[in-house]
């Protein structure tokens, strides 16, 4: 098992390479193997140039990367990652997300705790909502979305979405509720799934040119707000506060 806490907790007095080999030694890894793993990880995390630099001289992003590397140097089957991208620059955060994805593909089970819901949406296969230390909902992204998607929303970009055309669509598909967004955009809302082929065929018959069709789904943040009852504004404030 590997654990990467939300704050980098390696030794300021040791350099990057020494920190990694020390962490491997804690798991009884022999000298040759731990040095080889440390070199591999420094390369993988783009820290090879900084391997001989003291940890205290690292930037925040580099510290996070080395802390994650230290958490996986003994090749754990399960890895706990706490807020891996909090407070670091965009490039480092992207790199860390890519590394997390790669680790997972190579067979490591990762428990990721994060306040960034988009991060969970992007990286996790199963998501649990935790409020006040209790799991209040758990499931795959699709399951959580499906549970809270009360209606299907289809957004179309139609060249010259005139009132006459919209009226015809409403008559042909009386179960759909139609909203006009702007000159070209319309939204069809239905409690049932919307069948695309008959709709597009009808529009084509009427001479309308559809340039884009997009299924509008609620974001995971919206689902979270619905499930937990926590206001979106409060969540954003918390996130802003954490960034600062």
């Amino acid at each position, binding site marked *: *098992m590997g*654990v990467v*806490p939300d*704050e980098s*907790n*390696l*030794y*300021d*007095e*040791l350099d990057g390479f020494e920190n990694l080999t*020390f*962490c491997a*030694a*804690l*798991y*009884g*890894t*022999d*000298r040759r193997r731990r040095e080889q793993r440390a070199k591999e990880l420094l390369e993988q995390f783009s820290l090879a140039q900084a391997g001989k630099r003291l940890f205290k001289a690292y930037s925040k992003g580099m510290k996070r990367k080395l802390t994650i590397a*230290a958490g996986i140097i003994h090749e754990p089957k399960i890895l706990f990652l706490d807020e891996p991208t909090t407070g670091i620059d965009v490039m480092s955060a992207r790199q860390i997300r890519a590394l997390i994805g790669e680790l997972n593909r190579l067979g490591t089970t990762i428990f990721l705790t994060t306040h960034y819901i988009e991060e969970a949406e992007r990286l996790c296969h199963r998501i649990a909502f935790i409020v006040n230390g209790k799991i209040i909902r758990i499931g795959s992204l699709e399951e959580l979305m499906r549970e809270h998607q009360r209606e299907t929303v289809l957004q179309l970009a139609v060249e010259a979405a005139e009132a006459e055309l919209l009226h015809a669509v409403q008559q042909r598909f009386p179960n759909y509720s139609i909203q006009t967004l702007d000159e070209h955009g319309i939204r069809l809302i239905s409690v049932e799934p919307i069948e695309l082929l008959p709709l597009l065929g009808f529009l084509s018959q009427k001479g309308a040119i559809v340039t884009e069709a997009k299924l509008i789904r609620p974001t995971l943040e919206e689902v979270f707000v619905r499930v937990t009852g926590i206001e979106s504004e409060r969540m954003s404030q918390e996130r802003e506060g954490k960034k600062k």
Partner: protein
Amino acid sequence: MNTRIAFWNILRKDMKTYYLKPPNISWGLVFPFAWMLMFYLRSQTALDIRELLPRAVSMSILFGTTSMLAVTITFERRSRSFERLLLAPIDLSLLMLAKTGGAVLFGVLNAIVPLLVAAFVVDLSEVGWTTVIGSILLIAATSIL
């Protein structure tokens, strides 16, 4: 799992990051001198260095072992690196042995300083070194208790 590797590496890391720091080394050098000087100045009669030496060695070990031991764990708890040690698959008593081992080793190194100084001043050829070394190790081990 080979716990010896973990033990030696914790001990080595502690020596490097805490004990063998310039302030600690200078402390280890200055104190034995200070103790010897104090014994010498406070004595009413002329003191034999050989009589004074065991006291200075004992004090050097005591101050060497206790100077950093108390703070190493506090430092690591504050920087949260102690959690890393606690999560490692090693026995807690072995972990504590490795942490205290660094202090014992530093105390033993401190004991060498007054011995070296004395060796320049008086003849130590009649000293029973087995007893001295045994005593140093015993004092270093018990002074952390």
